[in-house]
């Protein structure tokens, strides 16, 4: 069955070399086309093909997986419970202080004639699949263009920014996480009110670059979106390491993401907000069509 004659080995090797060369050509073509064109159509088609199976397997295995996960984390859960109890008491005190501040803000807005923007419209979705390897920074959700989701919309959870939609089919969509190296986010550091860009590194903390920073950013300072491509004020993370601003130099440091990206389950897609260049996105892509991008998702400052 498995002859090892010289002729047969040659045939296998030739086929092997042909397939590797084909893969190389496909990769080159994909890089040249920036993930668009035929590749985009194939990606959307493949995802449409896999989505029903992924939803089915996710539905069947979720309780089992949850049980296994719960058992494996039982010891850690007790410590976590104690820690969260202390945190709740601390936050209750802060809520009281915040309520007083809210009252002041309301009065000031009334005085200045400001209008508070309406609550942003969102679509709640469930994560039902991920990329096939540890090097993929994407998640798939169970809502698509039929629910009003289009490419470019921001995705958040209760902790903060998760990523943005970069591929949409009728009943599913792909989210590219903020940890992806090709995703950048325009941000504002709350303590200094200065802006910059955070970029994913594949995993772990995000890289922050501030080009016109004049003040030092300190460990623990909160970082939020600046409103350029994502709605303003969404928590992105906290400064990981204190960094000094040097005139004429770029301030660089790391930011710990606010959202626990390895454990997201439910997310909200913000469908009621358009970025500055929403017109460009909408012109390029209709909701029901293929929508992929491998270019940077950011807007600089």
């Amino acid at each position, binding site marked *: 069955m498995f002859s090892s004659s010289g002729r047969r080995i040659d045939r*296998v090797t030739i086929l092997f070399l042909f397939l590797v060369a084909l893969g190389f050509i496909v990769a080159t073509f994909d890089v040249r086309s920036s993930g668009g064109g035929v590749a985009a159509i194939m990606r959307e088609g493949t995802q449409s093909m896999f989505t029903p199976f992924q939803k089915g397997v996710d539905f069947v295995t979720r309780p089992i997986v949850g049980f296994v996960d719960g058992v494996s984390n039982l010891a850690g859960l007790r410590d976590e419970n104690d820690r969260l109890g202390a945190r709740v008491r601390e936050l209750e005190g802060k809520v009281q202080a915040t309520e007083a501040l809210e009252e002041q803000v309301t009065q000031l807005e009334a005085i200045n004639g400001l209008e508070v923007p309406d609550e942003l419209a969102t679509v709640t979705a469930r994560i039902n699949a991920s990329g096939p390897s540890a090097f993929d920074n994407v998640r798939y959700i169970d809502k698509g263009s039929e629910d009003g989701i289009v490419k470019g919309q921001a995705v958040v959870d209760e902790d903060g920014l998760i990523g943005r939609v970069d591929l949409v089919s009728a009943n599913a969509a792909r989210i590219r996480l903020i940890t992806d190296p090709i995703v950048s986010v325009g941000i504002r550091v709350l303590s200094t009110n200065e802006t910059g860009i955070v970029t994913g*590194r594949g995993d772990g903390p995000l890289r922050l670059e501030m080009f016109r920073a004049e003040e030092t950013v300190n460990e623990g300072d909160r970082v939020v979106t600046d409103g350029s491509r994502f709605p303003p004020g969404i928590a992105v993370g906290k400064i990981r390491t204190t960094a000094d601003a040097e005139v004429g130099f770029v301030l660089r440091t790391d930011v710990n993401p606010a959202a626990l990206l390895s454990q997201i389950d439910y997310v909200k897609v913000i469908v009621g907000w358009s970025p500055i260049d929403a017109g460009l996105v909408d012109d390029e892509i209709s909701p029901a069509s293929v929508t992929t991008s491998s270019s940077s998702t950011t807007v600089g400052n």
Partner: protein
Amino acid sequence: MSRSRVVISLLAVLVAIVIQTTVLAPGRIQLLGVAPAFVTLVLIGVSLQVESEYLLLIGFTSGILMDLIGSGTLGLWAMTLTVIAYAAGRLRGRFTEGSGYVIGIVFGLTVFGQFLFVLLGTLFGQGTIAEPGVFSKILLPGVWNAFLALPVFWVLGKAYWSRQNEWAI
């Protein structure tokens, strides 16, 4: 060469891709934050059942599907799994020499596959090699695959055996 073996092999890698992207997704069943490279493992298991030419085509096809579902450049997993399929086809004679060989080969091929993907990703401008935790993402799937190799190969063997008997009847 039975056509049924090729069909079962294709079904096996499709099921492996679905399992990899759902059950073994981040936040589900993962040890130390990294999942087994399940598709690679199933492809190595398939190498025991089909001839080398078919194995190469199955490796390339499963790689393209992974590329299409993943976020990276199209073709990188296709090249990686084609190389794994070629190597597995060459080494299949060793699988009969004992469980230790099976585990060792699975570990070696998985780690090599992960490393090759990182290398190709870096060559194609994805900066994969600079990712934090890249070494654990290369090594740990090899360790998990080594643990899973024998049970997964047993299940695969049963699938081929049962289908073959059913069709024979």
